[in-house]
């Protein structure tokens, strides 16, 4: 049993991907015993009509029967009246959380608008997923050079918002050492394994951060799902940690927000 906290629907603009349509995506999830996936929409990075994007995401998730899809709506605080998008995610679509792309939407984490956004998300008891990167900055298309999100201000922001719960997606490729330790020490930041690298990388990760803060995330369909699955097999993890990462920690997070 696996809960994948980092899946996406819709199309990536720079290439067609084997699982960028729903039937093969569901087939892939089922094949690897993923019973629940937390899903954002790739349209949320690029579209400005986020009301429509989030409605479509909700309908997609509601209709799917093979795997439980949990929608995480997009909110772009650089758009006018973004507060209404957030309100709809919480009140109308009953989403447990939102997914943010600060680097695609053009704001830094030390800007006031980000503090406003997490204020409101915390007030609505929304889990905040923050995506640090979508692809490798070294090989991005020349038309769209998007740096990784600078998470340096984040620990202080989390500390100053006592009810905020945040999941960093695609962060562990660059987030290491003291910065990682400081975020984990807040007790309210979780990390997905999609970009954790190094031989036996999850075994070393659970020595760097509490295992209760580590979540299975694939970054499907941009990444092959098998990457996260095989990392679980490769690494030195006891059964307790394996279960925690595969599904228990994610279930606990959604439970906390219920």
């Amino acid at each position, binding site marked *: 049993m696996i809960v994948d906290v980092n899946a996406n629907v819709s199309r990536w603009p720079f290439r067609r991907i084997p699982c960028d349509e729903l039937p093969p995506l569901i087939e892939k999830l089922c094949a690897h015993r993923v019973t629940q996936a937390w899903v954002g929409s790739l349209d949320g990075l690029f579209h400005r009509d986020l009301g429509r994007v989030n409605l479509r995401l909700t309908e997609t998730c509601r209709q799917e029967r093979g795997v439980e899809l949990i929608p995480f709506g997009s909110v772009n605080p650089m758009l006018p009246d973004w507060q209404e998008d957030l309100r709809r995610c919480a009140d109308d679509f009953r989403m447990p959380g939102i997914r943010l792309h600060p680097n695609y939407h053009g704001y830094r984490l030390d800007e006031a608008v980000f503090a406003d956004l997490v204020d409101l998300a915390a007030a609505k008891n929304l889990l905040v997923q923050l995506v640090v990167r979508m*692809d490798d900055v070294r090989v991005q298309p020349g038309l769209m050079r998007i740096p990784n999100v600078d998470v340096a201000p984040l620990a202080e922001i989390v500390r100053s918002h006592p009810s905020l719960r945040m999941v960093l997606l695609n962060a562990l490729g660059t987030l290491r050492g003291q910065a990682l330790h400081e975020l984990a020490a807040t007790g309210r930041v979780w990390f997905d394994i999609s*970009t954790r690298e190094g*031989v036996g990388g999850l075994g070393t990760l659970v020595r760097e951060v509490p295992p209760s803060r580590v979540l299975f995330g694939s970054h499907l369909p941009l990444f*092959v799902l098998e990457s996260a699955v095989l990392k679980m097999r*490769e690494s030195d993890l006891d059964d307790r940690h394996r279960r925690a990462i595969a599904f228990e920690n994610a279930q606990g997070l959604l439970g906390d927000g219920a």
Partner: protein
Amino acid sequence: MSRDHSPAARPLTRRGMMLGTAQATAAVTAAGALAGVSAQAEEGDGEIWDAHVHLSGVTGTVEERVDRLLEFADRLGIARLVVFMGTSFVRHPSPEEVRQQNDEVLRAIGHAPDRVLGMAYLNPEHAQESLAEMDRCIRDGSMVGVKLWVAMRCSRPELDPIVRRSVELQVPVLQHTFDHVDGGLPGESTSADMAALAVRHPDAALICAHTGGDWERGVRTIRACPNVCAEVCGSDPTAGFVEMAVRELGSERVIYASDAGGRSFASQLAKVTGADVSATARRLVLGGNLRRLLAPALAMKGAKP
């Protein structure tokens, strides 16, 4: 204390496969093998060979590092590791540093000869010493290929003697390539450098490590060079990489590798196991192609292919 590295001791061993007699295999040159001369016969039994592994990401002596790497590899059913560059990464190594690093790889091979293969790390800035090192490590030693990193762009003529010698020794040359959008290190090769080298040496067996990182560009760049294989390691486990490489280059020109320990075996193996390609293509990519490339050298050394 050394572990039992024999195939029988591995938890995920696969059925062995004969590649043919040593004499027959030796008659197939490395470049001929790359051209797919006997691809069908050597498709393999599904045994996984990893073409790109470092003694990094783990600690201890060379032998302890090998044991640890094999422990991780065993969990994913990876039968053999091609190791190079020792326990340190030096971009412009002196001849002495090259010898030290290669000595570490020779120790790694000696520790687990049924599981670990090695390639000789060379610095083309030192031409004569590079040729001598090829003789020491490949002709007279147990290594089965050449590894070149970032000391010098591989399109430079200084590489020609090394590549010519690799043809004589019937071993492949594995060259690091990366097509950075902002440009790479001064001596770092791009996939275009690799293509230029391949055109000058059509009889050489060349492996384009990382396929330039920007694999959609890299695959296109080497497409017209039949003596170049695309090697898939060292980048994100992006969906579609292996599918495009197999479609554009043919399944005989794509090779699985991990770049462990900087990368996990898992993320890189997943590029192949998660790819939407035929079972035949998958077997070739996972091991058949590398076995075919290395068969002449292994046969000459009397090693088990």
